[in-house]
């Protein structure tokens, strides 16, 4: 199994490299940091702009290959260069990465786990009330764009806040600035802020996973090995849990890596809508500001996230499916 995972990991590292390179080349050839200076007043001289851009390794007069080499040379030493405003990209990553990771991890875990459980149970209760309701909910979520979900949640939250007369949900920013409420108070405040964006992400995940898991579960529920397990003396419920769900999880784990990409896209919108200063909102801002190095850095971050997710799914897969381990 170790060999299998090591080989996968090596593949992913290559892919991350390629994805980041591609993102850099695309950003460097389409975004124009020089344009940023055009609107400045007083307008700096061309020589001054060139000098500044050269310092930032953003000068479009330098051949792309040369800029790329310089950039890559820095990146391998762990330095993602400087933003258009001459601040360190690395520092910005440090500030923002945690914000996004929190959102992604909670959104995924909550969405995937609830999706798997609800989907699996829906399959067991096929065509009963539970199944119909959860299927309906999942289809509804799938048909509504993530942006609409995020905004609707805000509207609903505002209505609830108003109706109850207390601020249960917060929907702007990551925490209330200037709040001084001790450790627990701050934590509570952060949770209040986190509920909605996490939910916005988790709902999409839930919808995808519950549909998928339901289908996978239906495939194995009637299978002979479940019948064998019952014939041995397991109750139906135990047989379904121990034999059917375990087997039906294998394809879902692969699916996890597959849907993770769409989750990353969802994060971008969610951060923007809820005013979270994460990586997702940064990439949008950076594109607007022609910030080549930042765009490349965020792309790299996303590629690494996807790599981690894929690797995790490989590990889970190898753990769940012994057929990979033995061969």
């Amino acid at each position: 199994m170790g060999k299998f995972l090591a080989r996968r990991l090596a593949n992913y590292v290559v892919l991350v490299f390629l994805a980041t390179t591609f993102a850099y080349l695309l950003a460097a050839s389409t975004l124009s940091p020089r344009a940023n200076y055009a609107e400045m007043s007083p307008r700096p001289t061309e020589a001054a702009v060139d000098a500044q851009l050269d310092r930032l390794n953003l000068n479009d007069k330098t051949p792309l290959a040369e800029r790329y080499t310089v950039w890559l040379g820095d990146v391998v030493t762990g330095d993602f260069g400087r933003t258009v405003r001459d601040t360190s990209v690395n520092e910005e990553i440090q500030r923002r990465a945690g914000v996004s990771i929190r959102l992604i991890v909670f959104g995924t875990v909550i969405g995937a786990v609830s999706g798997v459980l609800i989907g699996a149970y829906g399959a067991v209760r096929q065509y009963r009330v539970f199944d119909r309701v959860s299927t309906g909910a999942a289809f509804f979520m799938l048909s509504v764009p993530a942006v609409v979900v995020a905004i609707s949640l805000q509207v609903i939250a505002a209505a609830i806040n108003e109706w109850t007369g207390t601020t249960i949900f917060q929907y702007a920013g990551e925490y209330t600035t200037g709040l001084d409420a001790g450790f627990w108070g701050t934590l509570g405040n952060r949770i209040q802020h986190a509920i909605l964006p996490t939910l916005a992400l988790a709902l999409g995940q839930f919808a995808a996973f519950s549909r998928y898991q339901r289908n996978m579960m239906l495939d194995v529920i009637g299978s002979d090995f479940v019948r064998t397990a019952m014939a041995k003396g397991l109750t139906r419920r135990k047989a379904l849990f121990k034999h059917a769900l375990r087997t039906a999880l294998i394809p879902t784990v692969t699916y996890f890596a597959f849907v993770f990409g769409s989750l990353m896209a969802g994060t971008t919108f969610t951060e923007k809508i809820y005013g979270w200063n994460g990586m997702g909102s940064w990439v949008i801002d950076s594109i607007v500001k022609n910030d080549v190095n930042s765009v490349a850095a965020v792309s790299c971050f996303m590629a690494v996230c996807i790599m981690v997710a894929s690797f995790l799914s490989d590990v889970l897969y190898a753990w769940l499916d012994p057929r990979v381990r033995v061969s």
Partner: protein
Amino acid sequence: MTASQTRTETSVTDQRPGDAPVLEVTDLHVTFPGVGKAPDVRAVRGVSYALRRGEVLGIVGESGSGKSVSSLAAMGLLPDYAQIRGSVRLHGEELLGLDDREMAKRRGKSIAMVFQDPLSGLTPVYTVGDQIAEAVRIHNPDVGKEQAAARAVELLELVGIPNAAQRAKAFPHEFSGGMRQRAMIAIAIANQPDVIICDEPTTALDVTIQAQILDVLKTAQRETGAAIVMITHDLGVVAGFVDRVLVMYAGRPVEIGDVDDVYYRTRMPYTMGLLGSVPRLDDAGRAPLVPIKGTPPSLSDLPPGCPFAPRCPIAEPRCTAAEPELVRIGASGHRAACVRAEEVEENGWGAADIYPLPDIPDDTAAEVPRQERDVVLEVEDLVKHHPLMKGAVFKRRVGTVYAVDGISFDVRERETLGLVGESGCGKSTTLMEILSLDRPQRGRVVVLGRESGTLNSRQRFETRRELQVVFQDPMSSLDPRMPVFDIVAEPLRTHGHPKARLAARVNELLRLVGLDPAHAARYPQEFSGGQRQRIGIARALALEPRLLVLDEPVSALDVSIQAGVINLLDELKVKLGLSYLFVAHDLSVIRHIADRVAVMYLGRIVELGDVESIYRAPAHPYTQALLSAIPIPDPEKERARTHIVLEGDLPSPADPPSGCSFRTRCPKFKELGDGERRLCLDEEPQIRPLSTGDHGAACHYAQQRAVV
């Protein structure tokens, strides 16, 4: 079985008087309610039987007869929506109405089950050992993990898995079909149950493996003293294995009794038909099989009275008045559900007296010695090797599968050659190679005088016209969106049959295969399996071929239907002067239909010759084992036979043994001295003719011997 600590005091069989039934099923009814407007399906309608300790009961019936459903009901394994009535008592305790928790306590402990399909019967993600150990621990929670694992190994040894300790750690996909079925039996006997229900336990297996599994079941029964319910459609398996037989038809028992009574003193016309419809391995005659006309009734729309009445040749008006009860007839314990059973008894009627047999004309043309007849198909040293690939993206070749490895045979005009062997022997590959009309990797294939691979497109077209094929699965080989008329007319249209005479020709063809031309506008799914196969045959015959290649044409059909199709093939051959290349795994069918046989093992032909001498006195140890493994539907004969049970599984065709490819399993090889063995190890035997005419075997020590 040594350790008996897994057996707790709750199984009280030993304290009961010997003749109290262990399992008693009384008037069991199972109905699956129809969804929406669909009518209810009455799958089981009044099954009763009692099973005593150590007794073996066979439940026989065709698909849809309710034989499996009744046992699943006893196990509490039917889905919730099934409506179950009646009574199932285990040691006098009523099981119906117990909830899943209570039933689970009994399942696997007092009453265990072995299912048909060993392929999907084990959970793919747990090791075989763990799955057996689980069965032990469910009912004995205080048995530790290690103890249970040790017991699992012990059980695997008992069911005959070599290297049990090591194999217990393997996953199901690393086991062959036969080994998986052994593991299933190990699970079933893990807690020394009092009743083991075997639901078609050998149906999915090859005959030599079937013989092994039946052996294991006998051992299991000896070791546990359990009563066994053997559910099967195979009248041969039942004959030698069971004490009593229950024959089911349309959800009801129609005849029950001691196996000898039911087989030799059959009183119910359906049972008679069933017994008469199986081709017999021990029957040299070419008498037509007993075909039962029509098909079993739909369980949601049963005819009034006796459900067999629409198909029964001796039905009378009173048969449809009320459903006949099972009444005692003749010997004690022998009961039949037929109003005319008494008459049958008095007159001593047999199948031949009741059923009108089709008149199959003798083939006078076939009396010409075969050497003087034209060769329609010649295969010489045919080779087909597949590369064995590995890797998902970058495939690399890791070996070669020797699917067909140098075989030669010929088929003469008006002759049927049966190509037999177990799965993986290369018979289907051979057939595909012949049908492709391409140049083989090595050797020569000459179809109707034209050599494959040398034909121009016109010649290919011509050859295709004269060489037709009938496949196993009638459903998948017929386009479901085409009405039968178009299916049969298609080859005619392709080959430019005059339009004006098209309809006449299609009708003629349909009549020829025993279908009503009035049904030509229907779609394939409106026909039963046997009728679909007839459609397939009609299509194959449309262009008046000379050579018909048949790939397991009857193996997907129930026996009563199979007989009709076999009779039809027999008749067509004579009428139209056809030659058949008949590929099958069922040696009884081959004996009935073929003139010559080629037995394949691991891509080679090991024995070749005329049917009579091969079945009477096979010379190759593999053929002997194959024939010996097939149970004969004749209880007395079957009990008197000793089966040659081969050890182990088929070796991988990617890594065949050196010298004689059969040596790893050859019983003869084991008896040889070291000096004699050298030959088998080093030299690949070639087919050498035996004394009796047209018969040869590829064995260095071939020796003819009767085994049937």
